[in-house]
């Protein structure tokens, strides 16, 4: 085990340990605990008051726009990685900087628009 895949062995091991830890803990819990379910136990507990009505609420669209903004800048970040690796290589330099500048600039335009439309303001 070496080379490329070996370099990920630690990560794989960590993942395996994490999954194992979760499984062992939950299984031990299940084996050791007593199990006497009742209707009262499965109601929502909120400061000792009886809950009234359903627990479902429609989320505000604002959350969605924020989540979308996150996607937008995640995509931008994803393109920044390969760019950061190569822009210093011979033959790229200024051109690559300008190209990335345009890309980031256009996305910044979107942020500017969102800001002016008060999407970024919560209240």
């Amino acid at each position, binding site marked *: 085990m070496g*080379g*490329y895949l070996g370099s990920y062995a630690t990560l794989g091991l960590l993942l395996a340990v994490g999954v194992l830890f979760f499984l062992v803990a939950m299984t031990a819990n299940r084996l050791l605990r007593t199990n006497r379910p009742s209707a009262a136990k499965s109601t929502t507990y909120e400061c000792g008051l009886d809950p009234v009505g359903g627990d479902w609420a429609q989320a505000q669209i604002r959350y969605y726009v924020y989540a979308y903004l996150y996607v937008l800048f995640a995509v931008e970040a994803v393109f920044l990685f390969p760019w950061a690796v190569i822009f210093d*290589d*011979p*033959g*790229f330099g200024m*051109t690559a900087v300008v190209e990335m500048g345009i890309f980031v600039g*256009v996305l910044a*335009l*979107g942020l*500017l*628009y969102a*800001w*002016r*439309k008060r999407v970024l303001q919560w209240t």
Partner: protein
Amino acid sequence: MNGFTIATPAQVLAIDVRLPDLDYAAMAPMLVLFGAACLGVLVDAFAPRQSRHTIQFALSFIALTVALLAVIREARVGSRELTADVALAIDGPTLFLQGTLAVLGIVALLLVGERALEKGGPFVSQAAIPVGSEADRRQAREEGATEVFPLTLFALSGMMLFVAANDLLTMFVALEVFSLPLYLLCALARRRRLVSQEAALKYFLLGAFASAFFIFGMALLYGFAGTVSFGGIHDAALLATTSPLLLFTGLAMVAVGLLFKIAAVPFHVWTPDVYQGAPTSVTAFMAACTKVAAFGGLLRVLYVAFDRARWDIEPVIGTIAILTMLVGAILAVTQTDIKRLLAYSSIANAGYLLVGALAFSKEGLSSAMFYLAAYGFTVIAAFAVITLVRDDDGEATHLSRWAGLGREAPLVAGVFTFLMLAFAGIPLTSGFTSKFAVFGAALGVGEAWPVALVIVGVVTSMILAFPYLRVVVMMWLSEPAEQSPTVAIPGAFTSAALMVGVLATLLLGVFPSPVLDLADRAAEFIR
């Protein structure tokens, strides 16, 4: 089993660092539109509310005019080249279709920008506001959404890129750039919002599905050819060592994505609902410009990348063309809504265009391009008329409401009659010349499939004439209904769009030769 041989780092780094030559003059039309759209976003963010509409309209209009001039300049120079590292092909069809897109875009923009018919214009933002609520009443007093202009420009720039794209990747990005704004535009209607949103959602979901097909096909073709450029696929088809099944499945999937956009049967189911639900000016834009762009892309894929697979493609796409013509024509007969009728007619027209495309000849290409231009003008004018026939509730699109319109408003009814006759393919209209050109090109090949297609084309044209003529008869000979809709006095923009559309329909019918010659000279792809 599979051994993993690891490439040395030196191999990885042995990269040719030559940057692509970008021919900015050839890319100018797209760049101008992209720039103007971005500027439009800024205008919407910063300009005062009252002046936004004026600024946006002027900006879009100027941008499209400049783009048109850039196309004309490029055509004068006679550019024939691949640029941006073969991502773009600037050749005759590209320039012809880009020019067509610019002109049709300007005419459609006139409709989109029209505000005389309805206070604040036909578009609103946040269309999810329930009818009758406080927010709704406030919105009724406000200016409509002006984001439609940058969105339209985004769509048009994507279309221009689409017809020029010379590899599947660029084509896919362009496909998304022109589709996404269209999905959004569909959802912004001020009137009949639920239908509008339903249309947008259907279009979006099915469109996303079609895009997924396209991209999967692209992956298979890459697996086949080791490249996504059309020239590369063309060469690989010749020297293939991999299974040709990969090529055909890839082509089939890419074709599904494209046939969805041109609304060919069986990928047409979205068309009637979307055409009906979208704001009418957007429908006009879609019917004219999307068709041009999508067909431009399809023609390039078929003629440049797959012309060697022609004999295998012909039966499949030929069957689709026959189905498209038949289903479009027959279902058009049963429609009771004028927008749905035009949607089915648009489906049938996609079939006629496929007849031209399947000729696989220079004449086939040029006639299809001519058809696209001619059909675009007529259909925009027809939808412009539909925006005029209104009652309290917005546009009266049910056919029964159009009864007796000839007495109420002879001029508008006359114009619509002319357009219907053009659709039906009566001589001295562009509908006749374009159908004649397409069928002629197919017959000129003199093989079994094209001839069969022409026969179906002629038969369906006769079927299709019936619903058109029924509308005409209804307008002139029926008694008006109890509460007949009023015909709004068109604003300057709508009048201009109507005038251009009708004149183009007439001129392309009477003196088609200049444009036919232009299309003929342009009809040569480069690889």
